[in-house]
């Protein structure tokens, strides 16, 4: 803006006289305005001109002025610019073009990215560019998703206006994810590295009713608009979310997909997906169906919360393998289910389990997939103890006395070491799967802007993944940057002070690390205590393409939220954060035990 104004003032000095003639028609009005402002003196020509310029600037701000299109529509101005007779197309418009009634590019002027009532008439423009809308998926009162492509290599896509009989919507081009479309490249015979594809998603609370086909206008910079007719696909919000996330996971890019995807998520797609997901989550957890099977223990010392998704058999497998172990009678079990289609099976299994194993299970059935965090939060709200254990369905006892030992740690350990703690977990092959978690930061280069732009992404790693089972450095009691959500023992009061799991994350991934970082932020480090369980990682639920998309969004969200904290003392396997310093009395030699001490170790208890 400042640059344009300097250009205007410079030009004014050279061409003032000729311009003033053209402005006389408005002089009277301007004069009146000056009088109204209390200036009794007649304004000079320079003052008149300056006010005129300001008036036009207010009418057409430079931010909304399409420079390229103005030059294309006015070839003489283009030539004048090339001859350096004018500073810019915008400067020309202010000085001459407006008064001369020069053609200016048009573009939708409505507020963008919000649902609006329909206008009485749509500005239907002729088809100008090659392009198509492959899908418009709409969930009334929730959101929509649009997928298509356009040849906008010369004139970039500005916005997309969708007009139905009852509503209209303008999606800003900057919020669209641009993706590679090899089919479009083939159709256009293009060899340029241009992402012809676009993908947009928008969350809204109201509107979006579907009644017949809609008009879609693809507006490009330069005033080009391409008008298409499209019949929207109606979908439930669950389907809309899954479709969008699956598209995200399968999208192609020029460059590293993870890096390019992060960039696009930051531009708006991520925020919209999170908003859609959060609205769904709130709806799903609002009215859970809760039923108790078997006689519950009156005052349980701890509550085991298991979140099920896609696989019902883990209820009876866990009941079978947890039942009868020393100390297990002190626990209550809550299974929260993110797969409503499993409800009937689970209720039958829970009923049978109470008969076969004598296990009391409380079932919390949600109406959809609320994700790991929200589901566990919902289950914790109905727990009857002040100690909650978040346990994955594919976690099973390795140490038969784990339940008794866990209570021993909780009851005898210092509070700050037991408010949030994890345990070593093992693969079915006997090797270590988890001995705590630490953080790394990956730097990827995005090439979409024409030059490499670094993108920083957080990554969570497990200590000791695949290590020999008796690797003391990973199994000993110690503070760690994070613990896996596959097994978390939490003081319920502390858990609630932390606000529980953050519910913005989609499906699952990163909520565990996020919770640990919230705890560290509030002054309590997560610990790991040597109580051993199996973890058949990744086998406890089904995983499909939408979950991959969810993971991408979660990584983006997690990185946005925590990268500064991580880079400030929590980075790498040996973080320097003061809360993670091993207290002297907890220091145990890194030396691995010999065979005899291994045998002894089997009989020892954890040392919090």
């Amino acid at each position: 803006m400042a640059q344009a104004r300097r250009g205007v003032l410079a030009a004014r000095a050279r061409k003032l006289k000729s311009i003033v003639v053209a402005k006389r028609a408005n002089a009277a009005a301007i004069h009146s305005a000056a009088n109204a402002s209390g200036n009794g003196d007649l304004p000079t020509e320079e003052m008149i001109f300056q006010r005129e310029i300001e008036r036009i600037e207010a009418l057409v701000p430079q931010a909304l002025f399409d420079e390229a299109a103005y030059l294309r529509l006015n070839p003489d101005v283009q030539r004048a610019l090339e001859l350096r007779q004018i500073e810019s197309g915008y400067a020309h418009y202010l000085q001459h073009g407006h008064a001369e009634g020069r053609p200016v590019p048009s573009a939708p002027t409505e507020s963008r990215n919000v649902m609006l009532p329909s206008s009485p008439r749509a500005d239907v423009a002729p088809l100008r560019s090659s392009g198509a809308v492959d899908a418009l998926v709409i969930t009334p009162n929730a959101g929509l998703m649009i997928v298509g492509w356009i040849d906008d290599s010369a004139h970039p896509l500005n916005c997309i206006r969708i007009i139905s009989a009852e509503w209209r919507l303008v999606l800003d081009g900057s919020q669209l994810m641009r993706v590679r479309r090899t089919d479009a490249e083939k159709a256009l015979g293009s060899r340029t590295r241009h992402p012809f594809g676009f993908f947009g998603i928008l969350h809204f609370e109201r509107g979006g009713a579907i009644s017949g086909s809609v008009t879609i206008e693809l507006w490009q910079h330069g005033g080009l608009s391409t008008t298409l007719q499209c019949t929207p696909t109606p979908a439930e919000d669950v389907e809309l979310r899954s479709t969008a996330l699956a598209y995200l996971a399968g999208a192609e890019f020029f460059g590293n997909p993870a890096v390019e995807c992060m960039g696009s998520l930051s531009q708006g797609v991520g925020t919209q997906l999170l908003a859609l997901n959060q609205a769904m989550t709130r709806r799903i957890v609002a009215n859970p169906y809760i039923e108790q099977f078997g006689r519950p223990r009156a005052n349980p010392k701890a509550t085991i919360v298991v979140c099920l998704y896609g696989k019902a058999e883990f209820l009876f497998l866990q009941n079978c393998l947890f039942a009868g172990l020393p100390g297990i009678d002190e626990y209550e079990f809550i299974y929260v289910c993110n797969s409503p289609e499993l409800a009937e099976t689970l209720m039958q299994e829970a009923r049978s389990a109470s008969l076969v194993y004598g296990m009391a299970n409380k079932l919390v059935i949600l109406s959809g997939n609320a994700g790991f965090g929200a589901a566990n939060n919902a289950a914790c709200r109905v727990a009857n103890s002040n100690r909650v254990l978040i346990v994955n369905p594919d976690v099973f006892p390795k140490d038969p006395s784990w339940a008794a030992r866990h209570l021993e740690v909780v009851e005898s350990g210092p509070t700050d070491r037991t408010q949030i703690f994890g345990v070593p977990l093992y693969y079915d092959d006997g090797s270590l799967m988890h001995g705590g978690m630490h953080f790394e930061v990956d730097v990827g280069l995005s090439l979409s802007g024409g030059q490499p732009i670094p993108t920083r992404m957080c990554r969570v790693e497990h200590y000791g993944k695949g290590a020999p089972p008796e690797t003391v450095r990973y199994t000993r009691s110690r503070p760690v940057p994070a613990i896996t959500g596959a097994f978390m023992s939490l003081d319920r009061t502390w858990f609630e002070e932390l606000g529980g799991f953050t519910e913005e994350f989609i499906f699952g991934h990163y909520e565990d690390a996020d919770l640990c970082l919230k705890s560290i932020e509030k002054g309590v480090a997560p610990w790991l205590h040597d109580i051993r369980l199996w973890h058949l990682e990744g086998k406890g639920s089904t995983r499909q393409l939408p979950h991959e998309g969810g993971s991408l969004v979660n990584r983006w969200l997690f990185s946005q939220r925590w990268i500064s904290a991580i880079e400030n003392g929590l980075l790498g396997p040996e973080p320097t954060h003061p809360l993670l310093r091993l207290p002297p009395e907890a220091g145990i030699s890194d030396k691995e035990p010999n065979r005899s001490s291994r045998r002894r170790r089997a009989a020892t208890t954890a040392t919090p």
Partner: protein
Amino acid sequence: MKILLISLYHPELVRGGAQQVCYELFRSLKRRPGIEPVLLAAIDPSFKALYKSGARITGFDGRPDEYLFLSRDYDYTWHKASCHALIESYAEFLQLVRPDVVHFHHFLLLGVDLITLTRRILPGARIVFTFHEFMAICDAHGHMLRPYDNSLCSHASPVRCYQCFPERQPEYFFLREQWFKRHLSAVDSFTVPSRFMIDRYASWELEKSKIHHVTNGQPDYSRGQATIERPHKRNRFGFFGQLVDNKGVWLLLRAVQLLRSDGFADFTVQINGDNLKFASDERRTEIEAFLAKESCIPVGERIVYFNGSYSVDQLATRMASVDWCIVPSIWWEIFGLVISEAWMFKRPIIASNAGGPAERISHEKDGLLFQVGDATSLAHAIRRACTEKGLWDRLHKGIKSPPTVDSMVNGYLPVYDVRRWPTAGAQAV
């Protein structure tokens, strides 16, 4: 003393070794004073007419103390009872019968979890489990026969089992083992009909001291009247049993083909049995093609004759037309009831050198063993049996009497800890 015998199928509905042994035990226990046996035989929904509306457990054909467990919604993956009403009915049945001993002869169609339930309902009862194959260890029908190359499997592990079932993951097999072991931990005593099984289950980490060898026993179907003809040659061979893959009739037919190709055709093979429908497509096609081709040969020139199914009443007639019995099983044949049946009729056996047959048959003394799964080795044994003078007579003389039902019952009574019930213990033993 009340003993509940739990069986897979009733032998009069579906033939099979496990149910036959269980039923013989039931009948024999009924004759022992002080013992009240009750039979609960599981059937599957293919016996639709026997499923009475709303019933989960019913009687069987008006017979005292015989009941049918009407299995439904059985979970074949986890071998688990999935119908809650059925589980409740079983629990109620236990409470009504109040057995002192519950003797499982299988978990198939019942659910291995019913063992755990039995312990919960009857904490003081003795639970006995008889293994009739390796189904707890091996997901390949308990045969420990690797599906991709038909080699015998020596031990199970998550990765080895995954190799047999690549569509599943090692973790499934890990959990499967944990699942079975947890339920089997409710058992007081295990029994196996062959000793080699003890080591197999012990190496699977079942407590060895809890595993006992109790032989299978049968009534003497020959009634001491085994017909021995005195023909010029001993070149008539018989196969008795199921025509399913692991019983190896296809291997026998290949051996016949090898001998015929070699110009040796002076022998006959009588095939007695059925259930070809349960063979794999590949084996069924192979067997059917062989038999079809054989049927085109003039009767006097044929080697193989297919006689179809038989009952124990027909055993004497069928045995009378053979000199030798062949047991070509390609798996760890557990016991081989057919060996006992052949011995009742004093027919020497030619059998695979694995599992129960290898344990029971003394090579060159009462039978011949050939390399398991090897048609050439079997062909060689057949040729030798036909041509070696004095061989049949020598092996015939070496044949011992097979175990009787009484010997089986006497083997089970200590396992039942019958002395805990003095009245039964004194009278029954």
